[in-house]
């Protein structure tokens, strides 16, 4: 399986990254892409920008571990994850997850699995810039619940894993 995990400060062109994944692979019958975009508001208040802090080294390793797990669970032909860090303004892309498979079910499921884990396990932290200053974004319990549903049928996983 072709796996690409990349962190970058630069703008992210989701269409180019997705096309790269599929190019030259005639066995791919399904390509699912998810793009996370910086919204212009947080809790109903307009924002100027998001700044993403990350843990270099662990961020890549953690994403790679989940990509490996996704490829064990589903018959994937390729996965690309690109996550930005640094300052991101509304309308810009934050993250791309692209999954390729022969058929759509695996590609849809794997993309959702990877996004759910990225939200709760990949060491990134969002700080929001508003007119009245900066504040850290709180983690949402709904994201924990979304990630948790994938671990339910697994045995022998540590709670922290």
């Amino acid at each position, binding site marked *: 399986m072709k796996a690409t995990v990349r962190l970058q400060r630069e703008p992210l062109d989701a269409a180019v990254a997705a096309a790269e994944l599929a190019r030259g692979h005639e066995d791919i019958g399904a390509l699912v892409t998810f793009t*996370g975009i910086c919204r212009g508001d947080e809790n109903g208040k307009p924002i100027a920008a998001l700044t*993403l*802090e*990350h*843990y270099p*080294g*662990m*961020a890549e*390793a*953690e994403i790679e571990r989940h990509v490996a797990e996704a490829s064990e669970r589903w018959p994937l032909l390729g996965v690309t994850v690109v*996550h930005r860090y640094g300052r991101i303004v509304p309308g810009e892309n*934050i*993250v791309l997850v692209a999954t390729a498979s022969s058929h759509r079910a695996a590609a849809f499921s794997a993309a959702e699995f990877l*996004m759910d884990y*990225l*939200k*709760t*396990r*990949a*060491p*990134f*932290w*969002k*700080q929001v810039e508003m007119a009245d200053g900066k504040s*850290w*974004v*709180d*983690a949402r319990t709904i*994201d924990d619940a979304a990630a948790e549903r994938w671990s339910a049928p697994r045995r022998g996983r*540590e*709670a*922290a*894993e």
Partner: protein
Amino acid sequence: MSVKLRYFAWVRERIGKPEETVDVPPGIATVAELMVWLGSRGEEYAYAFKNAKVIRAAIDQRHVRPDTAIKGAGEIAFFPPMTGG
């Protein structure tokens, strides 16, 4: 035991530095105990670790639970719940 500590997001801001190397006194065996000890090192540490239950930890760049032993750790990181994606 000497260990490198790394702090991220508001844990880093409250402590006022991104990383440091500390000598952990004997008797501090787990991640949770390390957080209690760190919280006693001064006002900024007390502020950072006052709600230690919400703080997550990683040893050598892998997530760990509070009851994990720190013996043999090269690098221990403390950070708030993650908000990426």
